[in-house]
């Protein structure tokens, strides 16, 4: 019996496709954002409020992933920007191949900002690089403030954590100070914004963050 060393990543194929995507995004000046959260944290609602706030003609496109239905794409398509649904048919996360296929019919140099709504899941999307520049993780106040500790791998890769549904804070035992501390523990570098997509509180801060980042990546 012989032991052969093998130094490569298990998700080699995904990483290779993700690297191709990243290179393409870089070449075309596309800033790609991967949004991850539990089901029901408000990813689609945040995207709806975001798209509604953009001036028409802004070069934004959205990919939205779900196991079944194109409900989210229908919701998001109302705002006049290109939207495509990725239906995974059972898979609990998006992978780089799905994104590559979904992007095939769009002109890559016509997109300055690509927002990818991942399948609602705090576990599996973590391991699949989609070629994104930035990861945003949403956590809603109805979920409990210890989610960052329960799913450290996901929060550890976050550039920004959006704490959503803050309008519900009076009705739930969610402790914002603890949530912030737990996020800091698993990812000291993450920025944090508090929003309510229902009342609109904090959405200007989120928009400001988006615009500042998008500006850096524009050609």
């Amino acid at each position, binding site marked *: *019996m*012989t*032991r*052969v*060393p*093998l*130094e*490569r*990543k*298990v*998700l*080699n*194929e995904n990483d290779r496709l993700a690297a191709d995507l990243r290179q393409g995004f870089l070449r075309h000046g596309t800033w790609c954002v991967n949004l991850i959260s539990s089901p029901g944290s408000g990813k689609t609602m945040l995207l709806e409020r975001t798209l509604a706030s953009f001036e028409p003609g802004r070069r934004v496109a959205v990919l939205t992933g779900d196991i079944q239905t194109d409900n989210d794409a229908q919701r998001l398509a109302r705002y006049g920007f290109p939207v495509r649904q990725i239906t995974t048919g059972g898979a609990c996360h998006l992978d780089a191949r799905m994104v590559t296929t979904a992007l095939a019919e769009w002109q890559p140099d016509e997109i300055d900002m690509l927002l990818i709504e991942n399948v609602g899941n705090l*576990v*599996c999307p*973590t*391991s699949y690089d989609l070629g994104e520049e930035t990861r945003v993780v949403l956590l809603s106040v109805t979920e409990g403030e210890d989610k960052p*500790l329960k799913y*450290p*791998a*996901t929060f*550890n*890769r976050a550039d920004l954590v959006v704490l959503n549904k803050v309008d519900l804070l009076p009705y739930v035992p969610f402790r914002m100070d603890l949530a912030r501390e*737990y996020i*800091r*523990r*698993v990812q*000291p*570098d993450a920025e944090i914004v508090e929003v309510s997509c229902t009342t609109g509180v904090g959405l200007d801060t989120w928009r400001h963050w988006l615009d500042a980042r998008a500006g850096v990546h524009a050609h």
Partner: protein
Amino acid sequence: MLEAVRAESARHNAHVLAVGVKVGELSGVDSESLRFCFDALVQDTDLAPLTLEIERLPWRNRCRQCDRDFAVREYRTECPQCGSADTQTASGKELEFAYMEIEET
């Protein structure tokens, strides 16, 4: 993973007996689930018998202030040496092959 096993098997013209992988604490991969799926996929195929050997890699951070590399326990990411909160993940995200054990056929 099984595609990689097949590729190695063909490359060495050998049967692969075991595959070693490194799974980081922050990889998002649950070792038991990985093992369960791996065994289910291997069972009753020409790849059997094939053992999965998992090495767990702990989560480690490095301090940007004093450069100390330390194990993160109980989610404490502050530097144990200088107390700084300015630390970054140094390892623990791995999901990598380490080796394969082959038997020439």
